[in-house]
């Protein structure tokens, strides 16, 4: 797949690229002015629909379609929530967009608000991003001063206020309804659906939640056109009428054991191997990859043999991963123990489960404790089946939880054990030579054993 000239990352390395002046010099805000002067909100929705843009926040839902779920002619307020909570391990593309080109994001927000008739937009920002906070707030202030935000923007009659809200550092605040609860000042416990946010979201009003990169894409589609966007990426599968394709550039976050980690703009559909070799300079220290996370830890693991999988919205699913996720590609080299990897993954999800749903709350914590025991040399082969059972039954897909965090916790468990079972078994046999084969029920309560 041929490399493309960076568009979303155009401002990276440009001196003062984050300023309004620089953004305007690159052609920014002109599309907004043209839109406000000559287009109806419905035209913008149609443009985004036609572009085939799919959300960059993880689920890959068609952005234009999502906007059409809003009630027609809603008399009250509509809100846009921009998801900048970016907490999926390995993901940092939102951060680069916010720090290096905040006006691109803001132009996307204004266009999206115009399209959805939202008069207020909230940016929910991950707490640990102080620089993004400064840059975004600076850009918002500049945009107000230049008349791109506020009342009656550029005489169009359209008004928009943007508020920057800093979260308090919890992964679950990135789940769209957890984000909404948190914005309302509550504990970020994801809501049950229906009603979906488009019908009843923030402050019980129709709400759209979109990712920062999605906003940047909207700005670029407005500037460069639908045809440009559709010229990049992977068209929809003609044999699958339900595949909307994977169009446009994507910011891949490459990290882990590569020579040149970083955020790279590439066409959707680049393979993991191309990404690692062409952009990342190969696996570091001349080693081989053992496994690669395709799009954030929630998406599971690809083996070295699966690295030719295209990283589009449909690709990772074909090798048993959950999906493309955030396109955060983390390379794990051959020296890493998969047992340690899974332990680390379980620790993350046990720490971040919001604790609402029994299977997720207890499953993430129990799996962590099993992994701790295995690493302490007390593992048994039967533990692997238990972990697999948990992985298979925990999540929105089997229907046992409210949100997708549990699926994200389950996938690394399933993938690691299915794809690396031999390594787990060897580890357990080696570290627990006397007990690996025991299948007796574990005495539950030694203390009240007399009963």
């Amino acid at each position, binding site marked *: 797949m041929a490399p493309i000239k960076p568009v979303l990352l155009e401002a990276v390395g440009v001196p003062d690229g984050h300023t309004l002046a620089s953004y305007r010099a690159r052609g920014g805000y002109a599309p907004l002015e043209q839109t406000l002067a000559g287009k109806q909100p419905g035209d913008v929705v149609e443009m985004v629909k036609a572009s085939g843009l799919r959300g960059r926040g993880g689920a890959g839902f068609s952005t234009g379609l999502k906007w059409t779920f809003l009630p027609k002619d809603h008399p009250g307020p509509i809100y846009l929530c921009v998801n900048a909570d970016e907490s999926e391990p390995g993901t940092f593309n939102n951060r680069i967009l916010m720090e290096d080109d905040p006006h691109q994001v803001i132009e996307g927000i204004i266009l999206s608000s115009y399209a959805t008739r939202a008069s207020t937009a909230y940016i929910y920002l991950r707490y640990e991003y102080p620089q993004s906070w400064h840059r975004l707030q600076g850009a918002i202030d500049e945009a107000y001063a230049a008349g791109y935000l506020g009342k009656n923007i550029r005489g169009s009659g359209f008004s928009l206020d943007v508020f920057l809200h800093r979260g308090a550092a919890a992964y679950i605040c990135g789940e769209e309804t957890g984000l909404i609860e948190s914005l309302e000042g509550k*504990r970020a416990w994801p809501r*049950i659906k229906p009603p979906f946010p488009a019908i009843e979201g923030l402050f019980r009003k129709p709400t759209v939640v979109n990712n920062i990169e999605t906003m940047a894409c909207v700005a670029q589609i407005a500037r460069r056109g639908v045809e440009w966007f559709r010229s990049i990426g992977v068209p929809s599968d003609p044999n699958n009428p339900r595949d909307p394709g994977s169009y446009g550039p994507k910011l891949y976050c490459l990290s882990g054991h590569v020579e040149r980690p970083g955020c790279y703009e590439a066409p959707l559909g680049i393979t993991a191997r191309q990404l690692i070799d062409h952009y990342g300079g190969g696996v570091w220290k001349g080693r081989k990859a053992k496994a690669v996370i395709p799009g954030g830890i929630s998406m599971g693991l690809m083996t070295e043999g699966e690295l030719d999988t295209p990283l589009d919205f449909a690709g990772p699913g074909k090798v048993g991963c959950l999906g493309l996720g955030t396109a955060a590609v983390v390379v794990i080299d051959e020296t890493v123990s998969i047992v340690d990897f899974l332990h680390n993954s379980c620790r993350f999800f046990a720490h971040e*489960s919001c*604790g*609402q749903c029994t*299977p997720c709350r207890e499953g993430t914590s129990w799996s962590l404790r099993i992994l701790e*025991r295995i690493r302490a040399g007390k593992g048994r082969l039967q533990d692997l089946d238990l972990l697999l059972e948990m992985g298979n*039954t925990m999540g929105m897909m089997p229907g046992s939880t*409210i949100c997708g965090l549990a699926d994200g916790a389950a996938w690394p468990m399933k993938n690691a054990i299915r794809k690396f079972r031999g390594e787990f078994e060897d580890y357990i046999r080696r570290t627990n030579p006397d007990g690996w084969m025991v299948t007796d029920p574990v005495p539950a309560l030694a203390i009240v054993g007399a009963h």
Partner: protein
Amino acid sequence: MPQVIVDGQEIEIGAHERLNCIEAARRAGKEIPHYCWHPGLSVVASCRMCLIETGQRDAATGRIAMVPKLVPGCQTPVKDGTVIVTESALVKESRARVEEALLIDHPIDCPICDKAGECLLQDYHFEHGQPQRRADLQPFHSRRRDVGPTVTLFVDRCIMCTRCVRFTREVSGTGELMVTSRGAKEEIDSFPGFPLDNKLAGHVVDLCPVGALGDRDFLYQQRVWFLKHEANVCGGCATGCSIITEHNQDTVYRLKPRENPHVNKWWMCDEGRYGWHHLHDPARLLSAERRTAPDRSGAAWQTIDWPEVVDRLRSDLAAAGGLAVAVSPMLTVEEAWMLCAVARSIDPAAFLAVGHVPRQGSDETFPGGFTIRAEKCPNRHGVEAVLALFDPAVPGWDDLLAHVRGGRARSAWVTAGYPAPWPAPWIDADTAAAFAGLSCLVVQDLFPSALSDQATWRLPAVGFAERAGTWVNAGHRAQCFEQAIRPPAGVWPEGRLLWNMLGRRGLYDPVAVRRQIAGAAASLAALDGDVPATGIDLRILQLASNGTPSPA
């Protein structure tokens, strides 16, 4: 009629009924286990115990399409053609796993847990759980802390259903309880300096499906399997909540609300909940006594056997003549009616008035719609309805005081039965002095008072759980109830005394009296026949019998 198919069995539901799968399955006799769902609280669908399989039958073709995953029954509404599967292998495995997960960190201290015997975690474990524990963790800590003056939290028994939290937010509107921390480290707690202290707080214990929340009034007093249950009505205020009196060996241990959509939904207030202790107060009047010194200055009392009371009370009052009677709003409709009948048989011109109606503060309505009434008696409406049959003017307590103060009475019979301690005694010495000049004063009460000090006859009354009969609440709803416990030895309930004074034979039979009243009074005709457990609205029949719709 919409049809729902539960495990293959078709049931009809109402055209406009909005039921979830748990409720619909219940109609078919299938219980879907659930923790977090409660009909009086918002749906959170977080415990995941109610997961079931569902599908939809196509109306045209009859083909059934199943949803390819489990769904929470509590969150899933049913409509025509909804298919519910509650017993599939997938469902059973999922329940077993939820049970297993909930027990991972549970201290399993059932032998010392007050909830044992009425604990959903126990019950569901036996029914849906796995025979063996797979978690080789030794979860042994069991921490306890008070979250308020009446409620204590056994932290590690909590299964995080959040019913208690939602109750304080949605029903009491006080919001003292919250969830702290995250994931498996979560705990229920109150915010420092804001303990769980509101007039409905006791509910969180009823709502808790496990032994995490304990009522300090009940804690370790009685094993629940010893308790007997009687459907009762709370006498604490004019709301007249439907309750269950839980008792053993004539001792009440706790009261709980009984679901009644027309009165209290699922709730009752703490004043009512803990308002039974007076039943077992040693200061109660326990025998029928007649003053020996004629001038009432001496305190010499003679205990009279009840059969003898029946005759001598009548002859004393007849001899004095000029009878005035206060019919207490604590009495049942049946007792009130018999009292009026007895009084008129002694003195055909007897002055009959509603007894003292205690009031305190003003009505208080909570966000969930529950109301605590200022009128602290259960049956003013019932007593008034009965009195109207005898005297359309329906005089009140103040009229009776004026009547006595005006010298128009020579004897009086004051029924009371007010639970103590009130903030102040129900009658003060000044008011009681009005009765000083009478030649015969009968006072029937739970506790001694300034008035009983004046009495010629001092008779014990009984408390709410010791009565049977009918009360009519502030909303004109008549509820009938049985006696839960026997009164203390030597005490005849008012009904029994009056029954005997009317010359009726055998045991006092409130149902017979109720039927008799219903036959005699069109306004109370609805009390004929069986009254459902949730009561009947008398107003509707009163409107119909009068033929004049009233604006109320």
